[in-house]
């Protein structure tokens, strides 16, 4: 028996394209929140939390003191130890684990917004520098 030709053309797999969204919001001259995330261009679904961070301006330079990302497919937090060091503490402790990338993004933004003052206070304390603005 001869094999019937497949009348349907082979399916061509098209790799999804992603959009990178960056939003930076200035709270004061010395505080800012940045959130960067990837969105599937066709479905508009959030597929990765690239960065949600709180930065402070010290001596004309923006320093990220806490940031979140979901690069390994789970949400985790990085905390800068003190100003003069590049060291960061990476943790999943008290970080939202359940849900999808969108819920992680909104949770991370919410956490930074609610706790930014405490993150700032502790960072200045660890760095042994006086906070002239708060």
């Amino acid at each position: 028996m001869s094999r019937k030709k497949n009348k349907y053309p082979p399916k061509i797999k098209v790799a999804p394209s992603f959009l990178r969204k960056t939003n930076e919001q200035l709270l004061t001259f010395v505080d800012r929140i940045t959130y960067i995330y990837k969105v599937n261009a066709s479905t508009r679904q959030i597929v990765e939390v690239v960065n949600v961070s709180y930065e402070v301006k010290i001596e004309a330079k923006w320093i990220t003191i806490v940031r979140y990302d979901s690069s390994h497919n789970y949400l985790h937090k990085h905390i800068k130890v003190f100003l003069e060091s590049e060291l960061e503490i990476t943790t999943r402790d008290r970080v939202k684990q359940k849900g999808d990338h969108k819920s992680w993004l909104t949770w991370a933004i919410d956490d930074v917004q609610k706790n930014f003052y405490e993150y700032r206070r502790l960072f200045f304390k660890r760095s042994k520098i006086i906070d002239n603005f708060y």
Partner: protein
Amino acid sequence: MWYNLNLSMSIKTQASKNLKLSEKLAQFLVNHPKATEKFPKNASFVTFSAQDKNLNKVNKQLINELLEEGKKVIKAEETNDRKLPWRFTAIAS
């Protein structure tokens, strides 16, 4: 670095008020990804309240500071319109 500013509110108050606005803005931007597609990618948002004129006055100074740094700025104004809760304006230097 000391700022020589004539602010009518403390930095802590400004941060606290801007945080509440930025929470609303963040929710809107995450749920409406097309809203800022036409704007420059590395722009900074500065929020403006529908009610708080004092906050808006100090936030105008933030815009000036950003423009001096050479940053692109988007003014995000809260509206009282439920269908369009935010109005965006790109600010040129």
